């Protein structure tokens, strides 16, 4: 266990105010460089300047002293503000919760309970990543309820995530005796967040210089090492549980998307307008858009590179990114619904996409700029089976594999699904054979769609409620609509047509299954059952807060 998860207050990476204010710092630098461009050219290349810049102006007016004073004052103010904000921004990880206190004038105190954690996300934007810093985000259910630790040392962030997940899983280790000390004390860890404990050189005065240089070299090489390290730590997950996306398939999936159709139409319009002639305005209107779309393709591509999904002992890890990397761990039982879809254009290639509904939402985008709810941007049938096994425990058996296979590709018939009757063809002329449901291994499977095929899976333990509807048209046809209510997300578990009697049966069986699964569900402390005989205690208050924030 690292020193950070010991129940004491700790500080973030000393550079975090700069990194968090990143864009402004760089805008300021850009402003300065833009104004002094010619001077830089003069200094570096020896090309004499043509015109004056602000520095000359100051010099000519004899205001050098004032200018220096003003610059010094601004620097000192910024430095003090950053230092104070860094000193006031502290966090604490205890057995019960993760807490962050921040702010100078407006203090805020945010707390997330560990047994309500929905996911832990580590994001390394390009520039903090160059400095070896990472952002750790603990998501809990609810809008804007996440606790962010921005920024931490890269290695420390990985260690802290491991500890948080371990504490949350209920597999508690005995706390170190030092952890009992008083909180609120001035901490020795300010440095430790930059250098892991023990790497700070403590030589005598004579060797200090050499030691410092060595430390610099170590620092540089460790930065390079971190930057080039594989996105997924090979120790974290067994290799057979890892799903990756080949680059060609990734390119293909981006090319065969709805956006391409749009671009294609635009190009056709452009060509037609050129042939017909006389309408330059269309060229002016469309051409910049086409150039921008190239940028869109490139950014989607780089964001989804190095994609990996792996099963770890603390849940599924989804990682991606070439320059800005992100990887999120979803503990078991945090996935409320799963949707496997295949757009028509992907059908010749046999590609599928998996998206999920979850209660906690990271503030960071997912791969390809999509919402972070896409777990598998593109994958083959085998990849889909593997990912479903990872995110829905209990789907590793042959029976479920067959069911998934049928759910994805079967054209209907007697294949384990309860399908809609023939009269549903009035409403679903193509897909009625395929529209049906099945209950297996603690999950409901809904199958629908024939042009764009879909299979939706809802774990019974996470199901909130079940509804069946019937309007006048469906009443004439003795049909109904069934809907499984889950938390909001991209997956809407609805069956458009189902026999009216079957709908009533679905309501009864699925509700009974949901009640039974919830009773046997222990995923809020997912490791505890395997760790000891202690029964899982229910959270004390049924409607207790998942996160609290006090701003004063």
């Amino acid at each position: 266990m690292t020193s950070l998860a010991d129940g004491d207050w700790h500080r973030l990476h000393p550079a975090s105010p700069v990194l968090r204010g990143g864009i402004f710092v760089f805008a300021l630098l850009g402003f300065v460089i833009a104004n002094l461009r010619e001077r830089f050219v003069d200094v570096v290349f020896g090309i004499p300047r043509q015109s004056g810049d602000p520095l000359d102006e100051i010099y000519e007016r004899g205001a050098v002293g004032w200018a220096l004073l003003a610059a010094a004052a601004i620097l000192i103010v910024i430095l003090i503000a950053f230092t104070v904000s860094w000193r006031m921004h502290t966090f604490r990880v205890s057995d019960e919760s993760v807490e962050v206190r921040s702010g100078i004038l407006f203090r805020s105190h945010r707390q997330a309970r560990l047994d309500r954690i929905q996911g832990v996300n580590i994001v390394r934007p390009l520039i903090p990543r160059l400095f070896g810093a990472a952002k750790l985000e603990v998501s809990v259910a609810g809008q804007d309820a996440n606790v962010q630790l921005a920024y931490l040392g890269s290695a420390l962030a990985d260690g802290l995530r491991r500890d948080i997940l371990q504490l949350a899983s209920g597999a508690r280790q005995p706390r170190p005796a030092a952890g009992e000390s008083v909180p609120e004390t001035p901490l020795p860890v300010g440095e430790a967040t930059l250098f892991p404990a023990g790497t700070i050189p403590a030589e005598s005065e004579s060797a200090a210089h050499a030691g410092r240089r060595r430390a610099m070299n170590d620092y540089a090489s460790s930065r390079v090492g971190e930057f080039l390290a594989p996105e997924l730590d090979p120790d974290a997950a067994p290799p057979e549980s890892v799903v990756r996306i080949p680059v060609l398939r990734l390119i293909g999936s981006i090319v065969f998307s709805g956006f391409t159709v749009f671009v294609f139409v635009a190009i056709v319009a452009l060509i037609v307008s050129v042939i017909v002639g006389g309408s330059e305005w269309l060229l002016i209107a469309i051409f910049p858009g086409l150039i921008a779309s190239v940028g869109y393709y490139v950014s989607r591509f780089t964001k989804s590179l190095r994609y990996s999904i792996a099963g770890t002992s603390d849940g599924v890890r989804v990682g991606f990114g070439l320059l800005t990397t992100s990887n999120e761990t979803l503990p078991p039982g945090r996935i409320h619904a799963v949707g496997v879809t295949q757009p028509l254009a992907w059908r010749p290639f046999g590609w599928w996409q998996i998206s999920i509904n979850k209660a906690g939402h990271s503030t960071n985008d997912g791969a390809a700029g999509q919402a972070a709810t896409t777990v598998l941007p593109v994958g083959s049938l085998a990849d889909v089976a593997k990912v479903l096994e990872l995110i829905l425990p209990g789907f590793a058996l042959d029976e479920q594999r067959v069911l998934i296979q049928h759910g994805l590709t079967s054209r209907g018939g007697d294949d384990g699904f309860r399908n809609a009757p023939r009269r549903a063809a009035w409403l679903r002329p193509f897909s009625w054979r395929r529209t049906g449901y099945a209950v297996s291994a603690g999950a409901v499977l809904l199958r629908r769609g024939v042009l764009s095929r879909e299979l939706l899976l809802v774990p019974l333990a996470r199901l909130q409620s079940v509804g069946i509807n019937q309007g006048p048209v469906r009443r004439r046809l003795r049909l109904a609509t069934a809907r499984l209510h889950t938390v909001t997300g991209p997956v809407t578990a609805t069956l458009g047509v189902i026999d009216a009697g079957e709908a009533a049966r679905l309501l009864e069986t699925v509700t009974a299954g949901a009640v039974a699964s919830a009773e046997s569900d222990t995923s809020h402390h997912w490791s505890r059952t395997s760790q000891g005989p202690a029964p899982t205690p229910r959270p004390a208050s049924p409607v207790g807060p998942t996160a609290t924030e006090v701003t004063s």
Partner: protein
Amino acid sequence: MAEQPVPDYPRSNPTESVAPVGARLDLPEAGEWKRVSPKYVMVEIVGTVVFLLIVCAAAGALWLLLDQVWAAWAGGLIALITLVSLAFEPRRVRSIGYQLRADDLLFRRGIMYQRFVSVPYGRMQLVDITRGPVARLLGLADLKFVTAAASSGVAIPGLAEADADALRDRLVELAESRRAGL
């Protein structure tokens, strides 16, 4: 609470008697439904009448002040549809029903567009009781059962205030004994 059990309104089904093709949605295993207070019809009627007045005022203003003749036709049409639906109001209120079963709350409403929802007690996040101005005059309250899913939408309107409070306490008690995580 006016809770004389109604055996699922068998007579209120004209389609079935006329054409056996149609089949109303029904839960054969469900027990007796509890109904909401008949006084709730008044709340609905007042709401509809207010809506009617607003439509008439808007249409009238457009017609008389701005000389827009189409507004009169549109307003008249909306008013006619609203008046017809007003006649069905008692039936619609009678169709609202709920029952507390062993492990779940079952809720139904609607005649033309029927809807049945079953929520396991353990999924409850909170119970909300609201009282509108008209409902307060009649001593009624609305109870809303909120889960983590926005689409659950279980709202039982028109309960007598004492019944609403008692039902809330009962639901909280049941939810606590069957607590599940999110």
